[in-house]
């Protein structure tokens, strides 16, 4: 469903993403791991449409979307979370999620909605907030870090995307929350691309792992294959391997 071909992003002399080709099938749950600065977030930004690639193409659902603006991609069903929580700080948690719900339902530019529809939206919003254990009224700007991370995820889920890009969703979540979270996304039936340094989450969720280093794919395979790779151990896992594997 997603196909990257020779995708490249240059920042000045730096090739942050360097000719990445990758394809993700429908319903697949793919993890993207790699050292800091490997280019994972940059890759996400390009897939979502926030960054224009310096080279290469992005195909979604068999169509080339490389030149498509970000909001059009979102409407086709690509949603993402941000590594640095990117919320509507002055608005309540409920309104944060409601913006996502209305966008999905194509109601964002309506001048006015009847109270029936409004109730409907409200009910849906409450559902997502409960799922992530958030209260409705508090402004997003007053959340603790971990709570903000959860709202981040709630909004992406509310988009009900066909392709969900999660950039370190569990970072900042406490262990209890991230365990629950892993369980939650295991049961989602969307196609998933997840960047995460918390390997508990990665190996609980992923059906397939791609390893990026210095902008290039250095390994690609099943979780078991990745755990076994000496190269991955050397550049990324270190002795952490012993703890998790």
């Amino acid at each position, binding site marked *: 469903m997603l196909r990257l071909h020779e995708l490249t992003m240059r*920042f000045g002399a730096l090739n942050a993403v360097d000719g990445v080709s990758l394809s993700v099938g429908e319903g697949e749950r793919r993890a993207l791991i*790699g*050292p*800091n*600065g*490997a280019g994972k*977030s940059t890759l996400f930004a390009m897939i979502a449409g926030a960054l224009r690639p310096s080279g290469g193409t992005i195909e979604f659902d068999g169509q080339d979307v490389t030149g498509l603006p970000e909001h059009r991609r979102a409407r086709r069903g690509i949603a993402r979370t941000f*590594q*640095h929580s990117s919320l509507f700080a002055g608005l309540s948690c409920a309104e944060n999620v409601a913006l996502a719900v209305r966008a999905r339902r194509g109601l964002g530019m309506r001048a006015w909605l009847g109270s029936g529809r409004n109730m409907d939206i409200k009910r849906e919003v409450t559902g997502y907030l409960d799922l992530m254990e958030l209260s409705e009224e508090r402004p997003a700007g*007053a*959340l*603790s*870090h*971990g*709570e903000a991370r*959860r709202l981040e995820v709630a909004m992406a889920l509310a988009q009900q995307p066909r392709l969900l890009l999660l950039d*370190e969703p569990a*970072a*900042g*979540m*406490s*262990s*209890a*929350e*991230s*365990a629950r979270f892993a369980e939650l996304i295991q049961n989602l039936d969307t196609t998933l691309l997840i960047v995460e*340094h*918390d*390997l508990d989450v990665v190996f609980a969720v992923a059906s397939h792992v791609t390893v990026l280093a210095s902008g290039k794919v250095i390994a690609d395979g099943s979780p078991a294959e990745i755990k076994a790779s000496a190269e991955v151990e050397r*550049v*990324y*896992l*270190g*002795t*952490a*391997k012993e*703890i998790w594997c």
Partner: protein
Amino acid sequence: MLTVEALTSGYGQGQVLHEAAMELPPGKAVAVLGRNGVGKTTFVHTLMGLVKPWSGSIRLGDDELAGLDTRQIARHGVRIVPQGRRVYRSLTVEETLAISSGPGEWTIERVYELFPSLAARRGHRGDQLSGGEQEMLAIGRALLGNPRLLLLDEPSEGLAPLVVEELGRALSSLEGMSIILVEQNLHLAVAVADEVRCMVKGSFVYQATTAEFRRDPAAAKEYLGVGS
């Protein structure tokens, strides 16, 4: 060395810390654990003066810190690695480190040794760094102050496992620096800290040495909600 007694604080009308208390011997590291939103960040921010204490006392050596402003607290030898990194976005790595360094054993070179990827990005501005690189910069910035007391608020967030490991080694090897380490990464917390505190609803409800904590899965289950 650090004695916190009956510390309360919060935001506006909302109280977050309820009579939090802790003692930290010189040169020791204590890990502060707890679920999201219990008040860990508020606790370290209050120590740093970024959130004003409502009541209670914070003694560092012979000095009372409660009521001082952030700069004065910093001058008493306290540094923080804040949650969410908060690097200076318009300064390059090099500039950030330059304006943060004071006399002491931590030098810019040592920071670069600890985090080689920072050295490779020395000309990048703060907002041109990856998340993990920003975290490294924030840690380097704090270390360069050569603090007596170092407050780390989830420093492992966003760092690759290999780097977390290095960080753990580095923190363990710091001589004479007292450390308060807020962490979600239990492996790191346990590797670095001498003692463990768990926070629930703004107070510390559990205190143990790291060795005791390792042998006490019930505590982890009760206060942190982790199953294993």
